[in-house]
């Protein structure tokens, strides 16, 4: 089975779906394209462009029909006053009714279609975010947890979707509708149109003049809100400490202080925003007054038919309607801009791990792993993602860059096919980082990591997953059934027999728990696996890795949350499992270390010991320091 390249603009994804649907995945804009620009909009719209154009057109139709109905009504009134008999009013009456019907249909269609565009946008923007995260996580997320980034970005994408699907329709329609209405006014009387134009300019210019201040205010307010958010999260997390150590008054005071600062900023902001409200609230009437003055003068002058004065005034009142619509939504422009910046930072982040290789691992039972002079440091702030206080509990950290992510230096190590190796070392020695490199969550800065003597960088994403499977420290389960969570590991279209699933669950010693659940394999695990304990989640993830048939298994503290009996059960079951595989297990616990054929000791990113337990006790001081306390505890307890 050959695998097509996973990414790359020039290679369309080789899927069974030949006709990419309107909501389907699409490539993000070319790197550097400002998202809030015409180009950004064009790419985001993609196949929705015609629908978008229809929305703009409908917006125009509804505005024009509304204005026409009012103007015709005014015309009817004027004719009546000037002495027309009631029978002569049927024409304007019918026209008004027609306009009302047209407007109604246009309004409804626009509401419907713009929701459709909005939905397509949502799918598309989220598709970009998904693709970008898949491209850069976890190494490209600097020190951010993938879960945090996901939460932040999804909130941001809503702002971007609103811009693409609504604001930009209003912008386009302001550009189209306003001249059309002004032209209609010019047909009645060019002088009135010319006089009303500056009023429209005022409506456009006022928000633009105040824009700089708006951005500054918005930013200050958002920063204060972020501070407040961090403060609240801290309070929630540390309720016990705060209550127990008598800090409540002090913490309440801190919140009050931030809240007051926020209030001051908002008052300042309103002094400006109030100007916008004022202008927006009178622009239409101002147009009517100006049209009344000029039109009145023209009527007196004899160059304007008297019955056209009121229609001209009415129309002048309608001329800024599209602009007002736009001002209404531009209140949120600051939020949109910031959201777009954060999303752009994600979309345009460089690719830390290029998964477009096409190589495969030679067929065979199991693969050996090797590190050749591997040096590596987690990249620091690789992109400018906001570091706010999102819920940390939802994180999918894995072996990603943690707060004290260590550096590996010139690691040389061969793990033979079928071997069972434990990696030991103090916290911060680089064990998890090494596991991340073996699973290619990051690429080494120098040297190479090999599976079956093939550089991991040459492998396709699918071959890589088939060769090396990682069960991380912090397991992530999707909010779905146990079955779906297990099947994620499989590429086949046809799901396997239940028996296969149960065998994997048995090996991971979690079968009895799953059997005891009301819906068995079809039980939905709670949000982020929350209904299960840490140990249960680890065992399910282990079952998932076993099911995938991966030929080398990297277990990062996978049994750390199991009690001793369970741990031993898992170990025995893994050993008894007939399919041969290479196992690399990272462990603190003595019993786990002792279960391995060979132990590699890391210290400060270097290999300082390699051998069996007995050999290491004799030769490696780091190892002795590491296990001696546990041995002592055992010796001190009485023999059976």
């Amino acid at each position, binding site marked *: 089975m050959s695998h097509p390249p996973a990414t790359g603009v020039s290679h369309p994804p080789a899927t069974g779906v030949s006709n990419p649907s309107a909501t389907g995945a699409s490539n993000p804009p070319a790197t550097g394209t400002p998202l809030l620009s015409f180009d950004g909009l064009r790419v985001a719209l993609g196949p929705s462009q015609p629908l978008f154009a229809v929305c703009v057109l409908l917006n125009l139709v509804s505005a024009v029909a509304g204005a026409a109905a009012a103007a015709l009504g005014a015309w009817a009134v004027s004719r009546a006053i000037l002495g027309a008999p009631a029978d002569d009013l049927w024409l304007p009456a019918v026209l008004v009714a027609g306009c009302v019907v047209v407007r109604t249909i246009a309004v409804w269609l626009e509401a419907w279609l713009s929701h459709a565009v909005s939905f397509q946008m949502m799918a598309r923007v989220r598709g970009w975010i998904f693709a970008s995260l898949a491209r850069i996580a976890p190494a490209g997320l600097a020190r951010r947890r993938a879960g945090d980034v996901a939460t932040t970005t999804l909130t941001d994408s809503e702002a971007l979707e609103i811009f693409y699907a609504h604001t930009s329709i209003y912008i386009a329609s302001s550009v189209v509708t306003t001249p059309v209405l002004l032209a209609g006014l010019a047909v009645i009387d060019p002088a009135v149109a010319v006089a009303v134009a500056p009023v429209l300019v005022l409506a456009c210019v006022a928000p633009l003049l105040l824009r700089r201040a708006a951005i500054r205010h918005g930013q200050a307010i958002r920063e204060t809100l972020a501070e407040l958010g961090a403060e609240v999260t801290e309070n929630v997390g540390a309720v016990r400490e705060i209550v127990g150590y008598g800090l409540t008054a002090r913490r309440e005071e801190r919140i009050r202080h931030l809240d007051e600062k926020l209030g001051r900023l*908002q008052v300042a902001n309103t002094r400006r925003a109030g100007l916008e409200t004022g202008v927006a609230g009178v622009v239409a009437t101002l147009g009517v007054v100006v049209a009344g003055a000029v039109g*009145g003068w023209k009527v007196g002058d004899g160059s304007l038919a008297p019955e056209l004065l009121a229609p001209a005034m009415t129309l002048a009142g309608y001329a800024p309607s599209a602009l007002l619509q736009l001002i209404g939504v531009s209140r949120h422009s600051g939020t949109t801009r910031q959201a777009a910046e954060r999303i752009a930072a994600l979309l345009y982040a460089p690719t830390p791990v290029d998964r477009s290789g096409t190589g495969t691992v030679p067929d065979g039972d199991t693969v050996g792993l090797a590190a050749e002079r591997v040096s590596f440091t987690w990249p620091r702030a690789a992109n400018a993602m906001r570091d706010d206080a999102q819920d940390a509990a939802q994180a999918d950290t894995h072996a990603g860059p943690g707060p004290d992510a260590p550096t590996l230096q010139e690691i040389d190590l061969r793990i033979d096919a079928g071997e069972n190796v434990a990696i030991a070392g103090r916290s911060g020695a680089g064990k998890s980082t090494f596991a991340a490199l073996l699973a290619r969550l990051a690429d080494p800065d120098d040297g190479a990591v090999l599976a079956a003597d093939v550089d991991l960088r040459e492998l396709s994403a699918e071959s890589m997953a088939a060769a090396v499977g990682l069960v991380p420290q912090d397991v992530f389960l999707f909010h779905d059934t146990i079955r779906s969570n297990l099947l994620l590991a499989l590429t086949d279209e046809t799901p396997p027999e239940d028996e296969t699933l149960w065998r994997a669950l048995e090996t991971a010693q979690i079968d009895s728990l799953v059997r005891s659940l009301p819906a068995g394999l079809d039980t939905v695990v709670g949000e982020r696996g929350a209904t299960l304990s840490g140990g249960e989640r680890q065992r399910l993830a282990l079952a998932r890795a076993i099911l995938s048939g991966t030929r080398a298994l990297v277990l990062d503290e996978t049994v750390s949350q199991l009690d001793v009996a369970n741990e031993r059960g898992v170990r025995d079951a893994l050993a008894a499992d007939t399919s041969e595989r290479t196992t690399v297990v990272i462990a603190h616990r003595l019993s786990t270390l002792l279960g391995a054929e060979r132990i590699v000791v890391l210290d400060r990113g270097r290999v300082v010991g390699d051998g069996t337990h007995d050999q290491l006790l004799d030769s490696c001081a780091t190892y002795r320091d590491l296990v001696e306390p546990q041995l002592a505890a055992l010796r001190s307890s009485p023999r059976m």
Partner: protein
Amino acid sequence: MLINRTVLRFVTSARGHLALTVLLGLAASAAAVGTAFALAEVVARVLSASAAGSDAGRELGDALAPLAVAAALTLTRAGLLWWRDQCAVRAAIDVKHRVRARLVRHLFALGPAHARRTRSGGVQATLVDGVEHLQAYVGFYLPQVVVSLVVPATLVGILATRDVAVAVLVAVGVLSVPIAQRLWKRLLGERADVHWKAFESYAARIADTLAGIVTLISLGATRRAGQRLAEQAEQLRAATSANLRASLGVYIVTATAMSAGTAGATVLAAVHAAQGSLRPSDVLLVLFLAAECFRPLQDLQTYWHEGFYGLSAARGIAQLLDTPPVVAERPDAAPASLRTPPALSVDDVTYRYPGATQPALREVSLQIPAGSTVAVVGPSGAGKSTLVQLLLRDLDPDSGTVAIDGHDLRDLPLNQLRRTTALVAQDVVLLDGSVWDNIRLAAPDADDAQIMAAVRAARVDELADSLPNGLDTPVGERGGTLSGGQRQRVALARALVARAPVLVLDEATSALDAENEALVTEALHGPGADARTTIVVAHRLSTVARSDLIVVLDAGRVVEAGPPAELARMGGAWARMLQIQRASLQTAGAVR
């Protein structure tokens, strides 16, 4: 209308500013109505002059006065709107301030058990963004509700004095907007709900998939997952398209009502004028005034989103405020004199979590002598953490009693109890500040020597060496600069400095490596150990082997309790745990 009782309770505090906001909104509307009268007069004068065929100069001169009035009123309206905004925001800030203060106080009153159960993201959303949504809701939406009730009613009244039929037509238009919205909601209620629910669950699925992206990468499943998301989006779109079309049908009614109301009233007035039943100036008044009847409703519509978010935020706020504390202080609770260290006892305690089918603890009894170190062990789900929470009175037992020095915990003031106990948990949260600040906050009166002693005992000195500014290094938001093990050590030092007579370690050293764990355990048994009663929950046998007493829990019951050596001899559960560990070591030949 979107109104919430809880918010109204807080709104009363800002009623002065809010009343002013409403008045200014009404005044702005009055200015608009005045402008309409003036404009009608302008057109009436121009038309009557042109009908009379008089000269241009006089015509313009006659119209000039009402035109000036219209211009002046328009500018006044702009000023009133600006002023209204200022009042609205001040009122909203006042309300938000009160709501936040109340929420924070309530959060602390709810205590640790609540914090343990809820996701911090939810509380943060309520307290920060939720309260922020109240701004537009309280400042703009609520006053606008009043304005949109008063203004159309008044204007319809004015119109009725001129032409009853026109007034009725406008009234029908105005009324049909809210009625249609309500009716639509009722007719489509469930269908619309289905649509939004499907939409929400799709959004949740995306969030879930994104959050698990590293797992997908490890499994090589990103492309499949991405494709599946796109397919689901398409399915959802197809499934809900018809529904959406129907639920947006309300636009038909509201758009028709507004344009038919204004234009229809105008044409009707024109007909009446042609028939001679309505004076020219009154027809013109209808022309300019009819639209004003709808303006407040339109404004209310533009605030609909604010109202919607405000209301759902208000529900979240009400829900949090209505949550009763899990444990409450008795009104007659009085401080008791406790020994240092105190003894604890658990007598026949049963506890079941709300909604759980099985009790987490059943008929548990247990004596913890003063100054002893007691270890609680057992498999996951045995009830260890529940026992800890009962001992700290984060929870109250369903039956039975937990007592300290013979006093039922429920008879003591919560303050005294919390000063007496200190917990170091598995997931430690540090407060913003330096490492030193975090340790110091537990005992503001402690001198530097005392703090340093705790720093050394918890092995924080060694970790400080690796930090750029030693103990003065900021821990970052929620202690994010430090690793889990480092945070645990800081929390341990903090608990030691507090010199609480009861120290509870709930998997407190789980993230430490074996060497540090042993040193920390050593320190806990070292000098000062007999000044406190210590309760340790741990998986690692090495952590608990030196305890005075071991309590083995299984499935919510105490299976055995006693000194470790005695239990090992008895050959029960503890002995089996030791044996398994020993056997796994023996296979590798470690213990000969």
